[in-house]
């Protein structure tokens, strides 16, 4: 099934819902890192800048993830 997954990915057939969840997970890790580094909450735009994505798109991803805390549970099996 790893084979099929890779093919789907390469073919651009990954579902947007999954891609948004992955982005939300990365954003969560990034937020923790920046918080530690700067001693304050980073803004959504700062996290987006760090991840190289559009702020609005990150906003959508953050919603797809539900509560940010629930991202403690890893999305990757």
């Amino acid at each position, binding site marked *: 099934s790893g084979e099929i997954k890779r093919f789907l990915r390469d073919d651009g057939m990954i579902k947007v819902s999954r891609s948004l969840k992955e982005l939300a997970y990365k*954003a969560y890790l990034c*937020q923790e890192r920046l918080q530690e580094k700067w001693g*304050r*909450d*980073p*803004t*959504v*735009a700062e*996290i987006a800048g760090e991840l190289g994505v559009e*702020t*609005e798109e990150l*906003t*959508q991803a*953050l*919603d797809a993830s539900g*509560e*940010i805390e629930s991202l403690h549970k890893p999305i990757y099996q």
Partner: protein
Amino acid sequence: MEHTNEMQLIFDSRSSNESFARVTVAAFMTSLNPTVEEVSDVKTAVSEAVTNAIIHGYENEIHNIHIRARTEGRTLYLEIEDEGKGIEDVKQAMEPLFTTKPELDRSGMGFSFMEAFMDSLEVMSAPGKGTTVKMEKTIGKGRRLWTTQSL
């Protein structure tokens, strides 16, 4: 940065549109440079108001919900409107734990959440005409010190 930016969103009162409404408002407010937490506060308030319009205002019939949003300076102004059932006694409705639908496991805390997560809340309603919820939130309060530092 003091210019105003406005948008209006009209959508079907389906519960599946709740997250769509939330994302739209969240995407609209990005120019105010909010933190994840500030966005999440606004999303919670939008969810509660939209859920109320769907469940109480339209009682699950499909009609239009209107959201008007404006940013001015560092403040987000929001209005969420339905043309549904309306509220008899607004003051009572806004009391914590008050609900007219206990059978649906409603907590009666919707208005209390909106009040807690936003800077201001105003509810206008007329029975048989509908309900408009007005909210405001200023973004970056208490961040001023370091903002000045980092610029």
